[in-house]
């Protein structure tokens, strides 16, 4: 994110180095290529999703969204995100705090571990939980004895989602916190604040935009995750299907309109996420610009 800001700020300066720009032909070819690619692979599918969704009228569209199975899928997706995102926010902040502000043995291993969910296939992530908590898994017999259901139930879906979305917050915060160092925190301590005051008054305000950005990405993935959730869910209609799984079920049942209707809702959620994300980015760069402008006007 910091990179984006820097590029935008630097843009003003680069305008003067016109000797380096390509010829008009090359520029327009490259731009139309890029736009054509985007149109074909991004906008066209999106438009198709909405076209199919509304293909049999608004009535059918809303019927598809309000049938019990769809409502249950939406509810489960929201519940999953509502549990996974806050927990991952707390874990992410804690992990980045530890990594950025302290020196300890095994720090590199911890960083690698945080990246692990990015590196392995979501299917394997799902399988891990089946192997751990499934009926024949390690903890399976004990769970059955105590009548606790994890796999093919909401807890399993939440666990798999948390695993897959774990890196988003931490990845966003670690570089930011490392760049900021810990001197402000130490200052706060010498001024008599306790750890809690230090965190809420100094650390959190300094990382708030990065944190929000990470949370948004984490949320987007939590709602859209398919692979890992698919393995642990068991596809019980109206019970353990999340929105992505429900879409697949509908599609396999040849109920294309309904399938695309739910897909459009998911796309709509993604759309909102994108808008919020852009707003955050815009806000950060605006704050940065204001800061630069103010300090410049100060000196002149």
């Amino acid at each position, binding site marked *: 994110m910091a990179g984006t800001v820097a590029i935008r700020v630097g843009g003003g300066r680069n305008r003067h180095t016109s000797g380096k720009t390509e010829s008009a032909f090359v520029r327009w070819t490259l731009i139309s290529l890029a736009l054509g690619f985007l149109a074909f692979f991004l906008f066209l599918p999106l438009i198709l999703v909405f076209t199919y969704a509304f293909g049999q009228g608004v009535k059918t569209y809303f019927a598809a969204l309000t049938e019990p199975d769809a409502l249950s899928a939406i509810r489960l997706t929201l519940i999953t995100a509502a549990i996974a995102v806050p927990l991952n926010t707390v874990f992410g902040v804690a992990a980045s705090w530890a990594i950025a502000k302290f020196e300890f043995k095994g720090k590199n291993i911890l960083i690698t571990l945080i990246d692990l969910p990015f590196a392995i296939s979501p299917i394997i992530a799902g399988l891990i939980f089946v192997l751990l908590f499934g009926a024949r898994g390690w903890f399976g017999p004990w769970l059955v004895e105590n009548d606790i259901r994890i796999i093919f139930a909401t807890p399993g879906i939440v666990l798999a989602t948390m695993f897959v979305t774990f890196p988003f917050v931490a990845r966003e915060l670690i570089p930011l916190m490392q760049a900021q160092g810990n*001197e*402000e925190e*130490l*200052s*706060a*301590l*010498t*001024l*008599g*604040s*306790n750890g809690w*005051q230090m965190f809420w*008054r*100094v650390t959190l*305000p*300094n990382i708030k935009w990065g944190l929000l950005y990470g949370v948004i990405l984490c949320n987007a993935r939590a709602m859209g995750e398919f692979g890992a959730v698919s393995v642990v869910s068991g596809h019980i209609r109206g019970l353990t299907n999340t929105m992505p799984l429900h879409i697949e079920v509908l599609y396999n049942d040849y109920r294309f309109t309904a399938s695309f209707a739910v897909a459009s809702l998911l796309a709509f959620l993604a759309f909102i996420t994108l808008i919020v994300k852009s707003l955050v980015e815009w806000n950060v760069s605006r704050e940065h610009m204001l*800061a630069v402008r*103010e*300090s410049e006007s*100060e000196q002149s």
Partner: protein
Amino acid sequence: MSIEVQSISKTFGKFKALDNISLTVGGGRLTALLGPSGSGKTTLLRIMAGLEYADPGSGKILFHDEDVVNTHVRHRRVGFVFQHYALFRHMTVFNNVAFGLRVKRRSERPSKEDIRNRVHELLGLVQLDGLAARYPHQLSGGQRQRVALARALAVQPKVLLLDEPFGALDAKVRKELRAWLRRLHDDLGITSVFVTHDQDEALEVADEVVVMSQGRIEQVGTPDDVFHHPKTEFVMRFLGEVNTFHGRVDSGRVQFGPLDAPYPHSQQQITGEARVFVRPHDVTIDTKTNGLTAMSAIVKRIHSAGSSVRVEVLTAADQTLVAELSQDRFASMQIETGSTVYIRPRHIRVFA
């Protein structure tokens, strides 16, 4: 309030940052910890503050006879000014200075009104009262430094610790701020310790200078003391430019090159191989021998754009020496590059 450091050691992995350090910082004084990078001066300062812990079981830190080794930094009541100020970047100058007052326990916290008065009083003290609503990034380096100082003073610390307080400033601001800090210290009388690698800064500002090297204290003394009576070769070299000779000490006399001088009686007596040090301003240049023992040399370079004139000469033994003389004396001598001159040290120091 005095600070007493008793046999403190600190190791980072295999690196000994502090090697059994003992030191007493007088109450109400301004003390400089002076040394090159890696000498342990900042580590010592951070241990005094409680930002770093000394090796377990290694010694004590006493604040006015009270052991604070196990006191957490937030209860030590030290004002600490970081090298890069560490101002809270998302807070205005006012809120930065008010921070220490606002985080106090409810029972000790001053009223809003009192906080405002105290902050403005402090901002007046550091001459920044008009800038209370600014953010740190809108301030110059010197202004940030003073905000950091005001913020540290807000909680009425018992000692003030400053890490390279002028390190990040440009030369002119640095000079001004030095003199200002000295005046501020005289007004407040708070026990202060600052770290620096700049000998001029230490000698000019401090009441007492602690010269450090490789985790040890080389010498403690007034600026006059350490400059004029260095106890070790390191102090001699670190506090200013020197010309070095290899020589021999024998029955009360020092021989180096073609020269010979009585052994300086103020120093501890040694015999045998020794190194002889002469500061450039203690070197006399003559155009004639005057019948005294002197070293002949050829002028290589003259640097006269300054308050004094620096003359670099090459001796017959192929050694480059530096002499410093006044503009008046230089004008009366009429030497130029290539002239033959006679060099005579007026004042020498000898270390084994």
